């Protein structure tokens, strides 16, 4: 059990023409205070939907949590009323998104966007909130913070907008910051600045960060622990050092192997054959079986469970568990 957030057996389905399609089926992970946890996976693996479900942000879409619990401190977020949830959203858990232009209001001055949340959640008056807002902008490294308060998002560059987003997210001192691909739309030199800023915030304020990304380089440079997702499931969890040194799941191995690495040039890159199965027609058994180089008969018949090894690592693979063990140590 982690002391901040525990997600147990999360299941999310989307409705499509009266059919319910499960896009997330069996996601378990946790975050302790002050930790940076990464969720990595390729497009469609369910990592973004998982993060949205923690904030309960897809209530007006066709998506729905159909099973599991999301325990934040003592509360199950899925049980809360919308009113109670509103008090957590933005105050105790804050979120930043990939595209800083579409997540800021284009017709509202930066200052106002910052002040709103501060006044609402911290109960400060306008003057105090303004001071707090300027302080936040300085914290995230925005030069001439006072004058930026009176500017609109379009007047800023992508990197600056992402800093403003982080300032808004951090303004009520949340305990958990969810960052969904925060640097994907940015150039590498700006990405390095933003990652450095996020690590500084975590170090100085003790904020736990859930970092959702497809970039293994970003994971290696910023996370303490990593959760790997494939086809709506967690397939492996480990500390960042363990994951890169000895990945257990063949999908993790393939993913790490297929990234071109500077200073380690190969004539031919490893590539995972085939593609991700369609969520409308998921195969039985392990979802990675059709692409796995080590596939066995049992993989096509029964889906392995996410199992904890003795050293606390978790994996969902028949290579590392026997059926007996599965029955003994099933998690969640």
């Amino acid at each position: 059990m982690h002391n901040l957030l525990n997600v147990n057996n999360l299941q999310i389905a989307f409705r499509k023409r009266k059919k319910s399609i499960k896009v997330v089926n069996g996601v378990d992970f946790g975050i302790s205070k002050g930790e940076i946890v990464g969720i990595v996976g390729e497009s469609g693996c369910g990592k973004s939907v998982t993060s949205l479900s923690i904030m309960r942000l897809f209530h007006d879409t066709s998506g729905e949590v159909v099973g599991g619990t999301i325990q934040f401190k003592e509360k199950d977020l899925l049980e809360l009323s919308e009113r109670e949830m509103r008090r957590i959203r933005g105050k105790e858990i804050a979120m930043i998104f990939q595209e800083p232009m579409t997540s800021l209001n284009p017709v509202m001055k930066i200052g106002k966007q910052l002040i709103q949340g501060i006044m609402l959640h911290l109960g400060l008056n306008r003057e105090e909130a303004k001071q707090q807002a300027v302080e936040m902008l300085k914290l995230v490294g925005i030069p001439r913070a006072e004058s930026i308060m009176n500017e609109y998002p379009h007047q800023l560059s992508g990197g600056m907008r992402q800093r403003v987003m982080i300032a808004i997210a951090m303004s009520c001192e949340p305990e958990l910051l969810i960052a969904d691909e925060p640097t994907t739309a940015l150039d590498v030199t700006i990405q390095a600045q933003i990652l450095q800023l996020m690590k500084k915030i975590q170090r100085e304020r003790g904020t736990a960060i859930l970092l959702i990304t497809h970039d293994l380089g970003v994971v290696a440079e910023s996370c303490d622990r990593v959760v790997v997702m494939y086809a709506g499931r967690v397939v492996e969890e480990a500390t960042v050092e363990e994951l890169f040194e000895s990945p257990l799941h063949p999908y993790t191995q393939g993913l790490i192997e297929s990234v071109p690495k500077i200073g380690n040039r190969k004539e031919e890159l490893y590539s995972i054959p085939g593609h991700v199965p369609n969520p409308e027609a998921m195969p039985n058994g392990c979802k990675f079986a059709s692409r796995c180089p080590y596939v066995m008969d049992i993989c096509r018949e029964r889906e392995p469970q996410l199992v904890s090894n003795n050293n606390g690592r978790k994996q969902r693979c028949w290579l590392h568990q026997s059926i007996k063990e599965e029955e003994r140590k099933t998690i969640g």
Partner: protein
Amino acid sequence: MVDNELLKVKGLKKYFPISNGWFSSKEYVKAVDEVSFSVKKGETLSLVGESGCGKSTLGRLINGLIKADAGDIVFKGDNLAEASETKWRSYRKPMQMIFQDPYASLSPRMKIKEIIAEPLKIHDPSLSREEREAKVKSILEICGIDYYHSDKYPHEFSGGQRQRIGIARALILQPELIIADEPVSALDVSIQAQILNLLKKLQKDYQLTYLFISHDLSVVEHISDHVAVMYLGNIVEIAPREAIFEDPKHPYTKALLSSVPIPDPKLKRESIILKGEIPNAANPPKGCKFHTRCPLAMSICSKEIPIMKTVGDKQQMVACHLYQ
């Protein structure tokens, strides 16, 4: 002409006008400014840099999609910069493009066999229907798509398969030069590796020359023979791959390399984190355009524009006052 030189670009310029109303003086964004380089047959030159550095504009200039304001584009010994549109058209056959977004660059209303056959209809109208179909079939298979799928529409394919279709369309005319503008940036890593392997294999099999435009240095190292680093419309460093990656000279190249996140948590290296942002291209800094962010800037850097000079013995050319 140097041996085997397929493409040579000299002093290429493209200024886009930006007007701020009727009476204001004309201002320009110098998207590509005095760019020179050459590519040998069968080699890959990569253009790298951050958004707005002019790398995509440069690719479009070479393909004649936009017209240059000044400079020479010499392709197989012919200068195309002044060429008429008709002459350009005949040069687009040996010079094909692959685009970044496999969703936007294929017509959603055409079957993929029609998409791939279209260039043939234009550049090789004498072919019979059967000959065309045979060519489409063989190129699809070379690119890893079963001909069985050729009656489908682009939306029925995944991103990686669509990029294969884009590659097949570029290859069907048996081009010599392929300009690939961020061909793998929209793809997931496992698919990216498949496409990079395909591009390398095709290069070997058909002696293709690539102009590879990318912002991703780890991809660039994998695919290139030579690398040109661009910043705000200029090439700041151009050199063989090993020189760029093992012994970068320009402070911008060094910073760019050190900001790439490395997928190895044990490798704790000192990274140079640049201060500030990329300046506005409409109003770039005077002197060396990089001096506002350069950790090693000297007083001369804000006054004089550095010129390209060869440094060391590895054909490495750098535009930086540190080496003048």
